[in-house]
């Protein structure tokens, strides 16, 4: 049973990676299991300077999901390269750096900064974080802006660039095509849907930032639909995510057209989830008569 997948810049021994922002820089989860079993790891978003992020509360629980508005808290790209990348590199797995910014210029700078390490295999361009006020949102919902920022980042780096799409749009195919045209090497989808919860006793939003990003199994049908639609209109590979909890979910994403997947929220409920999925995946593929991961990609498209 071969779990391996080849993507631009990424030789994955299996298609499972923790999603950005849901695994920090891996330190805490390395206490639970040996991270070298992972297909790859996607780091928490990096910005040029360190950011504190949003006020708390930053998370809320919803039915089969959660809201978060961390607000891109991170120690800044230099510190990430100096201390976090080497730590992750010690596990000999491909490292994907999630990059964010408030302006196209910041995106470009962060991308450039990652040229100063050879331990990062690819960039994930986070144009879809709904929790940054200065501009993040418009990059992710306007195809023209998405194209601009993708072009700028492609110019600044020689690493493959996976553009992470926002589901908060009417036409996901249009967004995907725009960034493909701009040179994206792959797509990451989906980021969170913008949501809100109101606390009855205090009569105000639970999340201090008011709105937050909805993730978890609740959004899986939306992720599957968007990947299914986009797969038929682009020729770059898709890293799929949104609500994955089990190996069966991974197969559903592969069938919809994802070539690899990221697991986010599930890590909070079960810190071993990536490990368990990697162990279970061969059995699940076999159960549904597949002899490799590659064979399943896009097979659900009718």
């Amino acid at each position: 049973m071969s779990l391996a997948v080849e993507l631009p810049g990424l030789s994955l021994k299996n298609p499972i990676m923790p999603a950005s922002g849901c695994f920090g820089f891996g330190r805490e989860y390395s206490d639970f299991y040996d991270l070298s079993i992972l297909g790859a790891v996607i780091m928490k978003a990096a910005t040029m300077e360190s950011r504190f992020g949003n006020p708390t509360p930053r998370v809320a629980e919803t039915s089969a999901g959660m809201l978060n508005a961390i607000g891109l808290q991170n120690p800044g790209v230099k510190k990430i390269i100096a201390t976090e990348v080497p730590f992750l590199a010690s596990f000999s797995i491909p490292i994907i750096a999630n990059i964010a910014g408030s302006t196209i210029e910041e995106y470009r700078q962060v991308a450039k900064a990652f040229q100063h390490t050879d331990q990062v295999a690819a960039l994930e361009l986070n144009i879809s974080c709904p929790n940054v006020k200065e501009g993040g949102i418009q990059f992710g919902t306007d195809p023209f802006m998405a194209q601009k920022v993708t072009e700028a980042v492609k110019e600044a780096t020689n690493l493959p660039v996976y553009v992470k799409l926002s589901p908060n749009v009417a036409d996901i195919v249009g967004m995907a095509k725009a960034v493909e045209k701009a040179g994206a090497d792959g797509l990451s989808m989906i980021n969170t849907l913008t949501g809100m919860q109101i606390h009855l006793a205090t009569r105000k939003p639970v999340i201090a930032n008011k709105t937050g990003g909805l993730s978890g199994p609740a959004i899986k049908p939306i992720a599957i639909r968007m990947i299914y639609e986009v797969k038929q209109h682009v020729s770059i590979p898709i890293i799929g995510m949104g609500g994955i909890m089990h190996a069966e979910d991974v197969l559903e994403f592969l069938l919809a057209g994802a070539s690899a997947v990221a697991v986010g929220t599930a890590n909070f409920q079960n810190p071993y989830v990536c490990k368990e999925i990697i162990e279970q995946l061969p059995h699940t593929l076999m159960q549904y008569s597949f002899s490799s991961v590659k064979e399943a990609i896009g097979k659900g498209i009718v």
Partner: protein
Amino acid sequence: MQQLLKIKSKQTVALDTVEMVLENKAVSQIAVPGQFLHLHVDGHMLRRPISIADADPSVHTVTILFKILGEGTRKLSTYQIGDVIDVLGPNGNGFPLVNATKNSVLIVGGGIGVPPLYYLAKKLTESGVTITAVLGFQSKEHVFYEGEFEELGKTIVVTNDGSYGETGFVTNISKEALPSIDEYYSCGPLPMLQAVKERWNNIPGYLSLEERMGCGIGACFACVIPTDDHGGYKKICQDGPVFSAEEVQLK
């Protein structure tokens, strides 16, 4: 670490307040006062952080007390003796146990902030420290563990509505009613902690803080608290939940 804890006993100790004694050797052996367990509740996406209220390695037990507030704690309260709870923990750092020279310690607890202080008070008295406990509750039917604290030291119960013990807030207790103290430890709602910090600002104190959590282990940045005005921060789940009163900004 992830562990399965079996419910050994369960009782309601006050209005909507449940005490559960859980069995797990490893957790009972390493738990220190102030640490918490991150409990998975069936059907819920996020785990619930609940403090360790007592631990007895000799019989492999860990005690928790929780208030039924929302759906998760309501569900948890329906678990039966013999059922097993999946937890991460013990998580976080506990209260720093004072050195022997500091021999008079004030314990200030509010509502469901009282449980971690019980385990702390036990450990402190075991090491020869004299404790005085001021425990605040909304009203009479919310009071719990008064007897348990009295066995350890002078205990003053305060209720907001005066339906039991003293009336008002824990910080209303007059200087005369308290011995001279070297250090304080407090856990409870934020406004109480602010008032406590202010009232006893001349002596060293430790506060146990709460925040909504995602991972509970330091990876998601959900539970940060500012330490200064320049972007400094700590994570409550990993660096806390106990902080020295000086270390953190209570907004």
